[in-house]
């Protein structure tokens, strides 16, 4: 979606410290050039195909459709991307742009670690130095991802300020960029931040919706009647929705994280329930979860990738104008939706994506039998093994962890023996 000088209605813009002005302008120019550059686009498509496995399938879910007895349910399989999530579409795009600009290092923030891993993968492949900022609390909660980032050669820096989660990691990435702007690119993981990041990330993610346009017509002779996507920062939602923006008959539903309840700090609902307020922070204007004094607040979701305090200015604008309908799903509904997909279709969804499932499952029974809905399965759920095991109260999991610990070589000597 084209912005007006970086703005989408009242949202977006570029509110960054003066020190970053020149670098921001450089990205703006590089992106404008790249969008028109046939060879850049050809390389992008090639990497999407050959590195990430695109195009991803559009999968019909016969059992779920029968189960609900309403709309015909299709999944856009972003879980089948390399790294297991749509994040790859964006990091490949920005990674190529970094090479184009001649920078040598990338900086990224990560919450759950999905964007961190995707960035580390691409940095390794493109020969870029890579520094990932991650809240110290998130590092504790998501250590397996941290492990892989380090194995991939990235430096993972724990952020110990504030609540020590995604928002603080983003602040710290901006601080790094303020000092390293000459040789480093800030590779933001979602369609937020200062212009042109929201537009650029949405552009790279739009491959999702562009594929669905073709696949839907090929598989069922029409565009989908409804699209569903979870909304964290908003990048997978932008990716699926924006290519259908002008097809007025296509309805779009964004699903936010209702978490444990509607009290401040228990959820990440910025748009659907008048819980967020307009604000300007972290480089852009959008709806933020904040107190009356304009201090940003803590958020919660069972899905680490959805607990961001702000949201894409593009989504905020389209929600305000009514083009996108926003709703939310609670943690327990999300686990139920995840479990249902496992049992009915043999697909393991990420907890983020399970929000989109939960939102769609509420509507599906009430929709006409000949209607078609597409749910963006933004990622696979392998990464959520610890959270899901806890949520379904699996009895054997703690036993497994204990056994693993008991046999783990902790002493240096044991290590050497193993090698």
């Amino acid at each position, binding site marked *: 979606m084209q912005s007006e000088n970086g703005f989408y209605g009242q949202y977006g813009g570029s*509110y960054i410290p003066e*020190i970053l*002005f*020149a670098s921001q302008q450089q990205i703006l120019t590089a992106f404008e050039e790249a969008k028109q550059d046939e060879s850049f686009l050809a390389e992008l498509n090639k990497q999407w195909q050959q590195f990430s496995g695109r195009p991803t399938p559009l999968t019909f879910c016969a059992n779920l459709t029968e189960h609900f007895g309403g709309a015909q349910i299709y999944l856009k399989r972003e879980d089948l991307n390399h790294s297991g999530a749509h994040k790859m579409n964006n990091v490949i795009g920005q990674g190529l742009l970094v090479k184009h600009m001649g920078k040598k290092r990338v900086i990224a923030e990560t919450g759950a670690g999905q964007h961190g891993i995707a960035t580390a993968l691409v940095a390794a492949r493109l020969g870029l130095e890579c520094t990932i900022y991650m809240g110290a609390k998130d590092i504790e909660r998501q250590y397996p991802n941290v492990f892989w980032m380090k194995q991939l050669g990235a430096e993972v820096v724990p952020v110990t300020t*504030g609540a020590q989660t995604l928002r*603080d990691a983003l602040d710290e990435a901006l601080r790094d960029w303020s000092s390293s702007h000459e040789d480093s690119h800030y590779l933001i993981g979602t369609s937020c931040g200062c212009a042109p990041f929201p537009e650029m990330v949405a552009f790279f993610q739009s491959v999702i919706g562009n594929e669905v346009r073709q696949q839907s017509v090929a598989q069922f002779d029409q565009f989908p009647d409804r699209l569903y996507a979870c909304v964290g920062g908003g990048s997978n939602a932008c990716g699926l929705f924006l290519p259908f923006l002008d097809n007025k008959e296509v309805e779009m539903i964004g699903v936010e994280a209702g978490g444990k309840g509607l009290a401040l700090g228990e959820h990440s609902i910025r748009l659907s329930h008048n819980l967020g307020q307009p604000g*300007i*922070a972290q480089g852009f204007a959008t709806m933020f979860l904040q107190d009356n004094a304009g201090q*940003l607040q803590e958020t919660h979701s069972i899905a680490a990738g959805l607990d961001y305090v702000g949201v894409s200015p593009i989504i905020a604008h389209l929600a305000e104008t009514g083009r996108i309908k926003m709703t939310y799903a609670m943690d327990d509904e999300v686990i139920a939706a995840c479990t249902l997909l496992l049992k009915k279709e043999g697909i393991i969804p990420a907890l983020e994506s399970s929000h989109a499932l939960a939102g769609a499952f509420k509507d599906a029974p009430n929709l006409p039998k000949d209607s078609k809905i597409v749910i963006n399965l933004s990622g696979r759920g392998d990464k959520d093994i610890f959270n899901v095991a806890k949520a379904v109260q699996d009895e054997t999991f703690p036993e497994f962890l204990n056994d693993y610990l008991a046999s783990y070589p902790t002493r240096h000597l044991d290590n050497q023996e193993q090698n």
Partner: protein
Amino acid sequence: MSQLAEFTQQKLIRKPILAMTHVVYGYPSVTESLSWMRRLLEESVDFIEVQFPFSDPVADGPSIVAACHKALEQTLDVDTCLSQLGELARDFPESRIVLMSYLNPMYRFGLEKLAKRASEENIQGLILPDLPIEAASQYQQACQRHNIDPVWLVTPVTPTERLTMLASQASGFLYCVARSGVTGHSSHESKAKDASLDDYLALIKQHASAPIGVGFGLRKRSQIEQLIGKADIAILGSALLDAYNQGGQNAGIELIKELFH
């Protein structure tokens, strides 16, 4: 001429360079921060830059970030802060107080109301590091209406054309960031080869009629000496906070005396 610029000129008749000392409002508590400001004013610093805390201060390094987060453990109120600063401004007419914050808390308070209330309390300058001049027309108008100065920042990597634009629009003083990076010591020490500070300040001086303030990374007497004749105000931020954290008000005052004797 703006009130701040005139004040600066008058003061410079008797001093080679003026001192602007930075204090985080509400750190470690509102009372203690006000007592620290009063002490600084009693020691006749020329300016105090008071930072109203924001949860996400992206242009600041670890010392100031930690102070802001500590301060935000209490509920802080912009209007109360301005009234309290106003009282100090009245008690110490030989010094000036400017208010620095990030955009969001001020935007929520209302930029028009901010300019009006600041002016009522004789807070003559406002610094909002994440509000670029391109997005600031309403703020600029509000400041003009209430006769206070919006302070703009320039940096060593600001493109020349933009630097001259900002310098020509500067009122009150122009805040020249001395180096890339965030305030204070941090893990993000810049490796970039910033142009020499002397050349940078000379270029600014060509284009700015407003006084020149220099900040970021100042912590040694030699750095202040280097600025004399090239800048009008030296801004002491994290170094002062670090001294305060280590040895309280007295250690802070000692640092100021050492730097500006």
